[in-house]
């Protein structure tokens, strides 16, 4: 392809992109944001109620936090298992992805999906197919932050 033909193709592609941008419906940002805010808020609000309840029983703040994380993960896994969480996610988007329940959903959904390929090459190998990046970069950041702390405090 000579330079002129390349240039023509580029212009043609840009014109096509303009047409697509003009016609393609935009996601309803307002509606999606309201849903995300409400659902995300309800999930976090419910967790806060649990934290307060455990604190009132005399549990330490650290223990209450850990216990509530476990409860929320269990609930998300349960609702993923009975096929409810994905229906919620369709409407709530980030509202149900960002809290810890979204992380649990990603792992359980993968485990359920790949169980049919067996426990080793299915569940074992692919359970983190969606959540893996969060773990990898979460660990990486933890290591960096840990190192900074070591150097600052020495």
């Amino acid at each position, binding site marked *: 392809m000579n330079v002129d033909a390349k240039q023509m193709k580029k212009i*043609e*592609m840009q014109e*096509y*992109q303009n*047409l*697509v941008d003009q*016609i*393609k*419906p*935009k*996601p*309803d940002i307002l509606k*999606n944001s309201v849903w995300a805010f409400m659902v995300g808020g309800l999930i976090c609000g419910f967790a806060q109620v649990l934290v307060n309840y455990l604190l009132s029983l005399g549990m330490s703040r650290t223990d209450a936090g850990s216990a509530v994380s476990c409860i929320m993960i269990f609930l998300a896994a349960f609702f*993923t*298992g009975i*096929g409810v*969480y*994905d*229906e*919620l*996610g*369709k*409407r*709530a*988007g*980030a509202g*149900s*992805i960002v809290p810890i329940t*979204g992380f649990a*959903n*990603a792992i*359980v*959904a*993968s485990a*359920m*999906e*790949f169980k*049919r390929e067996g426990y080793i090459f299915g569940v074992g190998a692919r359970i983190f*197919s*969606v959540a893996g990046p969060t773990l990898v970069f979460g660990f990486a950041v933890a290591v960096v932050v840990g190192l900074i702390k070591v150097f600052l405090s020495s």
Partner: protein
Amino acid sequence: MPGFKKKGSQTVVFEKAPVITSWASIVGPKEGEGPWGQEFDSVLGDYLYGEDTWEKAEKKMLREAVKLSLDKRNLQVDDAEIILAGDLLNQTVSSNYAARELARPFLGLYGACSTMAEALLVGAMLVDGNFFNRLVSATCSHHYAASRQYRFPTEQGTQPTPSTQWTATAAGAVVLEWAGVGPRITAGTIGKVIDMGQSDAADMGSAMAPAAADTLKTHLNDLERLPDYYDLIITGDLARVGMAIAEQLFIRDGLSPKPNYSDCGVLLYDEKQDVDAGGCGCGCSAAMLCGPLLKKMQKGEINKMLLVATGALMSPTMAFQGESIPGIAHAIAIEN
């Protein structure tokens, strides 16, 4: 004499147009609830079809659709001299494994969602070329099998966009014969792979629309026809977004196929069925063809139809490597 039946740049015209003597469609529950639910031969009660995985269910749908298409004409599987089939899954497993069970000579094809037209085009050439007397062209897709391969695990809570399409759970099979009673495949246009740089995995319609427009324009030019030659020009699975874009491209090319233009992806589902832009998948155009469309041709409500089946040649691997999504479209003219 080479190039004897080729007309123009990309079109073939059949000398003794092969006859569509029988056809069959099997669809999933959601497609059964759609506006054309009554027109399909069989509607499944659930997505597993008595199997234990989505992939096996898809394979069974294809196998049963092939059997049913032959059975409707009182033929046995062994009466099909060759089977042409393809699907969306890696290594086209549904077709390969269905062919294993059907135990007939088999050619596997891949044209993403354009596979039905590709199988009919190749099939018609094989019959018109006097290689075979009778063959079956078939294809299928399964919503959940495609979803886990191309997108996310089925139970993951992800949010679709307005341009997202719903992969149809559907299979269609067509019996093509050298002689018989039924609509005939008179011509076909083999499409080029066209890529206009679209890379949104949640918008296949925009990736495929340029290919549909190119194939339609080439088909009409090659045969020196106007759009109104056809009672119906129907694209495969552009859905609402892709169809709106395609219409603009047609106008740019000086064609105005309206009011005889529609799209299988738009027709297959009701807007209330929560499918966003509409349907997609090999089964989308296959089921619409082997359900309502060929029935309408049989009744004489449509006499000349051009099916422009569209395919997004999408690969998650290539998408992650930064490539855009190429599209392809093949056209077949079916006439009474």
